[in-house]
């Protein structure tokens, strides 16, 4: 059952994995932004435009839930949108990554998991160069506390783990179920409306509200908003909540991926 290679120490394999991620991420970003004028910053255009749109439409109506301040509403919408965007684009790209590289996997020995991981990694890179600096500045201005800026990566780490787990799950499922993107698009759409991004959670009727707890993205968004917008010092209970969700999803995704891994090659 095992394939032994002369130099197959764990360290060498980790090194190869890292090299592969680097070239795959570079390729990914180069292909996406070749010859584009705004480059990386295109990824900010979508949340910025949507934030403007929501502010124009709902700003006045909802501002009373945000201390009668439209800027506060705008910031809440923006933080929610960048997180939702990160989730939907990274997992959507991860979904097709294994099937899209099926021809390659059939010719060269590469660890299959490298493809969803590199898709998430490319999105992390994009997030760090686009949305994160903006988020950090906002955090510094509202909280005037460097601790809040330093705590920002924690819920983001939870988000990354969560997306990685979902990425593993959907990329392995897509190999056997090629109609999955249609379902997944619907799931993303439900999630984007079902997450309190452009509306305050307080407007929900009491009967509907418990369903929000089922939303796996909510703890991350709550924690980020608490750190970046509330002005209080970081709430580690919220951070812990987000991290637990991330770790659970990562374990589920990883477990499923490993379980299916042996069968994947037959279907590519």
């Amino acid at each position, binding site marked *: 059952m095992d*394939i032994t*290679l002369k130099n197959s120490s764990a360290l060498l394999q980790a090194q*190869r994995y890292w090299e592969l991620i680097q*070239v795959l991420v570079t*390729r990914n970003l180069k292909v996406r932004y070749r010859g584009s004028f705004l480059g990386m910053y295109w990824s900010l255009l979508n949340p910025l435009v949507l934030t403007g749109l929501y502010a124009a439409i709902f700003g006045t109506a909802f501002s009373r839930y945000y201390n009668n301040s439209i800027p506060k509403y705008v910031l809440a919408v923006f933080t929610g949108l960048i997180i939702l965007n990160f989730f939907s684009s990274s997992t959507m790209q991860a979904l097709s990554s294994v099937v899209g590289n099926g021809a*390659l996997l059939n*010719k060269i020995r590469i660890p299959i998991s490298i493809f969803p991981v590199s898709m998430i990694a490319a999105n992390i890179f994009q997030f760090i160069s686009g949305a994160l600096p903006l988020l950090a500045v906002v955090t510094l201005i509202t909280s005037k506390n460097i601790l809040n800026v330093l705590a920002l990566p924690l819920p983001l780490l939870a988000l990354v783990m969560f997306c990685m787990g979902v990425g593993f799950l959907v990329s392995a499922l897509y190999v056997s179920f090629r*109609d999955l993107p249609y*379902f997944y698009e619907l799931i993303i759409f439900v999630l984007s409306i079902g997450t309190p991004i452009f509306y305050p959670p307080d407007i929900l009727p009491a009967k509907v509200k418990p369903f929000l707890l089922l939303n796996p993205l909510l703890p991350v968004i709550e924690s980020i908003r608490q750190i970046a917008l509330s002005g209080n010092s970081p709430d580690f209970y919220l951070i812990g909540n987000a991290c637990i969700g991330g770790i659970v999803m990562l374990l589920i995704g990883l477990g499923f991926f490993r379980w299916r891994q042996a069968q994947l090659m037959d279907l590519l």
Partner: protein
Amino acid sequence: MTEAIQLNKVSLLRRTQEEFSYDLKKTILSFIEGKYKAPTKKLTLDQVDFTINVGEKVGIIGANGSGKSTLLKVISGILQPSSGQVKVRGKIAPLIELGAGFDPEISVRDNIIFYGVLLGFSRKEMKEKSHSILEFAELEDYTLTPVKALSSGMISRLGFAIATDVQPDILILDEVLSVGDESFKNKCKQRIEKFWDANATVLVVSHDLNFVKESCERGVWLDRGRVKFIGEASETVSNYLEGLKQNQYLSI
């Protein structure tokens, strides 16, 4: 003699093509209707058992669908055997369908690095090698051109140049290469001959029986996933031809 490749009772079960459902809706419906069937599997390699020593040139022959390419995939580590053991010493370079790993959107130089890392080299090594690769492929003027702008001949030249520049311990050739124009073909031939003369282990899958007879030391005849004969190359080829004749007699 040290062995480069050792196969110990290797068997491989694969799902057959017709069983692919690829459809979530259908699968869920068939579950609900209680008609769900677990996919059947076919034995594509059956107790394959042989050893190849370092420096040996081995040809694998057999009819279409006899499991030749599958066997190479198992040896390269692309497929994991369902049972049995595969032991490989040294670095393997697959030469299966040149240029399959290229990304058409990025430049020739980026593709050299990308492809090389996929083959198991570091980015640093590939940056150092990229000059000699471009030179061999005669593509120095196209360093920054995206690969989609190259002609198909140029792409296979590039693929060949990368895959053979890496000096593997074990070279795997699926079908004999025919790359580019006449002058480039000669260059390829020389390079392959250099591999032949050096102490590299070479595994060839080919339908060109004369090539196997002339260039290989040993031959393996695969028939429906089983090793039917293994021995000296010319003996294997004549046995294979004999077997084909008998089959024809039977069918007539």
